[in-house]
């Protein structure tokens, strides 16, 4: 039984196509919305998208993208971040980010918050994201 489970987990159908690297959250005071960043690496032969995220530490998590349109900075909600086969997609300051809202408890730099990344292939990855100071460069 254990051997079967191990074989299933090791089979391509169960192997995670995506890995989440260099996760971090930029802390902001007073329970303000915070941004979460990471690099998504797709090691598989098929395109995969990040389609959602949730966290026990926040009431609401959305995928956002900051855009510079004619010198105007704006944020838009996005439904998915595509990660092409054997490629990567960055959630990074000034671009895609997780918008972490309504913290359920006081969050401080040095803590880790837990975020579940949800992908288009049905897989999920739980990531412990380190919380860095507001003025962290990365």
């Amino acid at each position: 039984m254990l051997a079967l489970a191990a074989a299933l987990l090791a089979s391509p159908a169960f192997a995670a196509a995506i890995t989440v690297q260099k996760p971090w959250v930029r802390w902001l005071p007073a329970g303000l919305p915070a941004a979460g960043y990471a690099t998504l690496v797709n090691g598989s032969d098929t395109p995969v998208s990040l389609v959602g995220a949730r966290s026990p530490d926040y009431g609401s998590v959305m995928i956002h993208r900051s855009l510079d349109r004619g010198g105007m900075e704006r944020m838009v909600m996005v439904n998915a971040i595509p990660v092409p086969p054997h490629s990567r997609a960055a959630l990074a300051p000034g671009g895609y980010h997780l918008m972490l809202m309504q913290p359920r408890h006081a969050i401080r730099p040095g803590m880790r918050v837990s975020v579940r990344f949800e992908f288009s292939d049905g897989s999920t990855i739980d990531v412990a994201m380190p919380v860095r100071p507001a003025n962290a460069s990365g």
Partner: protein
Amino acid sequence: MKRAVLLTMLAVLFVLGGCSAPQHRWKLTDVRGHLPDLAFTLTDDTGRVVDAHAFRGKLVLLYFGYTHCPDVCPLTLTHLHVLMQRLGPLADRTRVLFVSVDPARDTPALLHAYVNAFDPHITGLTGTPAQIEALAKRYRVAYNRGPTLPGGGYEVAHSAGIYIFDDRGRARLLATDADPISAIAHDVRVLLGAAP
């Protein structure tokens, strides 16, 4: 007219000299004479009513944003924090003014917590919608509140320029997100009369 004459002279010198391109004094956009002096009446992050004269004697970097902005505003404020670190002792002769384009949510107390999370050389400013609009219009800064999102929040699209004033409140330079910190540091040092 004077400028045209000067440019012609420079061109002649350039051709005669056959030398390398003339050194530009500024790495950022020179706006001297194109934008009015710094003037406003607003409330600072300690709740005090202040006007632009409170900052005379310091080089001012003016930036518009809001606290419920978790991505771009923190990126710019982090760049300005790095700038202050690079300026060392000169940082005390400068002041960053972070003007809220979201006065409905940005109380002085919230602004105080927000700007101090980035750098002690930043002052948060808020005010009535009319006071903020007056300052934004003066420097042709646009902003507009987006639709209410699920959960009740909203975003405020806003111009991302950093307006730099000398210690007499005269508009001198304009920086954008695309300008490297080294370029801003260079020009700030020159404006302060220090070695670049």
